[in-house]
């Protein structure tokens, strides 16, 4: 789930906050774009599709493709449309799907 990121921050300075993604702690730039910050932290994939379970990660970064979906406080959100806040609890959406339906 976490690999060495190919994304690099040109201005890595600035305050960071602790955020949990799928059970692991990450230090992300406060107020940064959540999808970007997760990419920089090496998170991939962001989710698995409910149809086939295929891995997905951000594609458009402009709120149009919905491949960056994550679950924040029980609500599915587009990570590329969210800003990082302290203590965010983030999960992969649909994680507990039982595959029965």
């Amino acid at each position, binding site marked *: 789930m976490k690999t060495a990121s190919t994304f690099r921050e040109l201005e890595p300075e600035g305050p960071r906050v602790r955020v949990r993604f799928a059970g692991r702690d990450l230090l992300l730039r406060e107020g940064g774009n959540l999808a970007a910050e997760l990419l920089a932290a090496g998170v991939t994939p962001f989710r698995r599709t*409910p149809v086939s379970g295929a891995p997905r990660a951000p594609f458009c970064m402009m709120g149009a493709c919905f491949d960056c979906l994550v679950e924040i406080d029980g*609500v*599915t959100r587009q990570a590329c449309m969210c800003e990082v806040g302290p203590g965010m609890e983030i999960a992969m*959406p*649909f994680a*507990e*799907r*039982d595959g*029965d*339906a």
Partner: protein
Amino acid sequence: MDSDYAIIGGGVVGLSVAWGLLGRGRSVTVIDGDDGSFRASRGNFGLVWVQSKGMNQPRYASWSQASVAAWRGFAEELREGTGEDPALRQNGGYDLHFSEETLAETVARYEVLKAKLGGNYPYEVLGHNELRMEEPAIGPKVAGAILHHQDGHANPLKLLRALAADVRRRGGRVLNGKTVQSVSRNDVFRIECTDGTIVEAARTVLSAGLGSAALGPKMGFRAPIRPQRGQVLITEKLPKLLNRPSLLARQVDEGGVQIGVTNEEVGHDDTVTVEGIAGIAAQAIAAYPVLAKAQLVRSWGALRVLSPDGLPIYQHSREMPGAYLVTCHSGVTLAAAHARFLPDWLEGTAQAPDLEVFSEDRFDLS
């Protein structure tokens, strides 16, 4: 002549009838409209349903029951033919109530109907706690529910696709993107489309949904059909949340929760209104509070095809012998009956079901 039967309208009703006729070795041509036409078959709620139907006309209840009982075999045959499974689930369904009073009133009416049906109306009443055992997601505002064991649901889009594929596989000829403008009869029926296409057939079935209102009178039918808008919502795909369908919400086989449905008399207007969808969203949350956090991905408005009393119309044309009007509000529920039993009625065999009460003549009385 092109075929034994010309079917005008390729929605779930026309295709079910065509499929049944093809199964009996009849040749069939289906003529269907364009991509933008009103199609109830594309916008419905997918219930394969018995409860609350025919409260004033037991024959409608028993006709629905016959269809529901035939649905499993029908679905199986479609699946064998096409590999497409219409996702039929028949484990019962609920009528949810937010007050003890409405629940009791409904039960009283069900008892009357049950007696008229000779006792064949298997339902039970669940109080809040019993319901909660069955449906953990149910909220505190729900007083209870009627669980009817003959109820169920299917995926109406998969049904439509399977029918479209299997009608072709069985040798049916399907003309898409055509609009029938006139029907005449000499030795055979001559059906003319706006683009000049002509189809000739020995018999013809008018099953054009709302389009039947305009064509019907030209073929000797009253066809008193009107549109009624229903707005429907569907959420993102969710983990299993609802076990059984209700009239308010059901979880479809792909995972989304479908929420319905408004009843609005607004003519041929199938737009979605904020007021309409906000209202049904609020109702669904009252029933299942966890839905408040679910994302709505799509909503739509679709037009019901309604007769004055909401019951189907099965009518033989006196003016044009060999022409039949077939239309109903619950085309998904009745798909199996239309596929399995209606061909006998069209062909006038000894097994023909008695559909007298569904004749247009009933509208003379009022």
